């Protein structure tokens, strides 16, 4: 968790730095009166690195993935709940009372 947050912050910082470098580069181009042909190499590298780091953080920090397969262990339904709203009390439990002498103390 801690590492994930640090990496995510680092990734966002790198993205900000890339934005800053781009602005600086465009300012430089204006001064040198050259045409913009493409972003410089270091900005592209920073963008890619920032993308990878933020994506990794975004996938690990919020938690694990849950299975969506109906037949996975987490989703496979093996028994229905006892229909407790319709439970009736005159069953064989009446003949076999609970052998326990504990009472509610108050």
């Amino acid at each position: 968790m801690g590492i994930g947050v640090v990496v995510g912050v680092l990734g966002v910082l790198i993205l900000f730095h890339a934005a800053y470098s781009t602005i600086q580069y465009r300012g430089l181009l204006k001064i040198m009166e050259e045409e913009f042909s493409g972003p410089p190499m270091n900005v592209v590298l920073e963008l890619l690195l920032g993308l990878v780091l933020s994506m990794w953080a975004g996938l690990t920090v919020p938690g694990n993935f849950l299975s969506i397969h109906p037949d996975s262990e987490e989703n496979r339904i093996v028994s229905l709940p006892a229909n407790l709203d319709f439970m009736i009390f005159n069953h064989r439990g009446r003949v076999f009372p609970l052998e326990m002498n504990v009472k509610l103390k108050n």
Partner: protein
Amino acid sequence: MVTKTEETELISLENQVDNGGGGAWEYLCLVRKLKVRRSEKVVKHGLSILNDAKKRSSLGPDDWTLYEQVAVAAMDCQSLGVAKDCIKVLQKRFPESKRVGRLEAMLLEAKGSWQEAEEAYASLLEDNSLDQVIHKRKVALAKAQGNISGAIESLNKYLEIFMADHEAWRELAEIYVSLQMYKQAAFCYEELILSQPTIPLYHLAYADVLYTLGGLENLQNAKKYYASAIDLTGGKNTRALFGICLCSSAIAQLTKGKNREDKEGSQLQSLAAIALEKDYKQRAPGNLPLLTSALRSLTLSP
């Protein structure tokens, strides 16, 4: 709905609690969440918490829920004294509550005083005529008295108002099955599959009903629903695999006269048989000879 992971969790927690390993409150919470009927254990462990003043006060306001849970479980175990004490405590704390009134009526039910219980439910319904739980209790009351047709009638009336209540549909289906009224039961299971299509157990129950009804068309439909149950469980449901084998052989028997080769059907059957054999080899090697002889008799009979 109880999934496989939750079932394993419940079993391990139950073992831990039974062997005095603690975690009784977590166990009771899980029982309540999964709505399983473990009344004896709930009474035992619930009382041990309630009788321990320190443990009870650590629960905070949750202890009232526990009183209710223990009361119902005690009624189920016929320890009416415990149930009465729990209800008395709740009554003192919530004098006007409908929920406690319901518990009192249930206590009358557990005692077997049907007439009084019915009057209690009727007076509760006067205050709130749309209380679903009380309507359901009335159905259960009729069922407990052995008045199955009355139970069916009031359940049908209830379902006209609350059509989305799948538990009631399931109850109705089970009552119909117990009376061998399979056509009506099939209708209820259709309704259940429509409302919750991802639960394999409804597909399985529907297929069982269709298979019991018999006839070529029903058998073919039953096979389809067994297949969908296998699809939803990833082939881990033994009953569905057996169902495929039985349906295939029954269909083969019915269509024996007409020389229509049903290649797909026999293929499905052999696949199901292979899956069954694999499963038995893994989990119950001792019963494998029984299985192979049963499967052989199924394939040889047509």
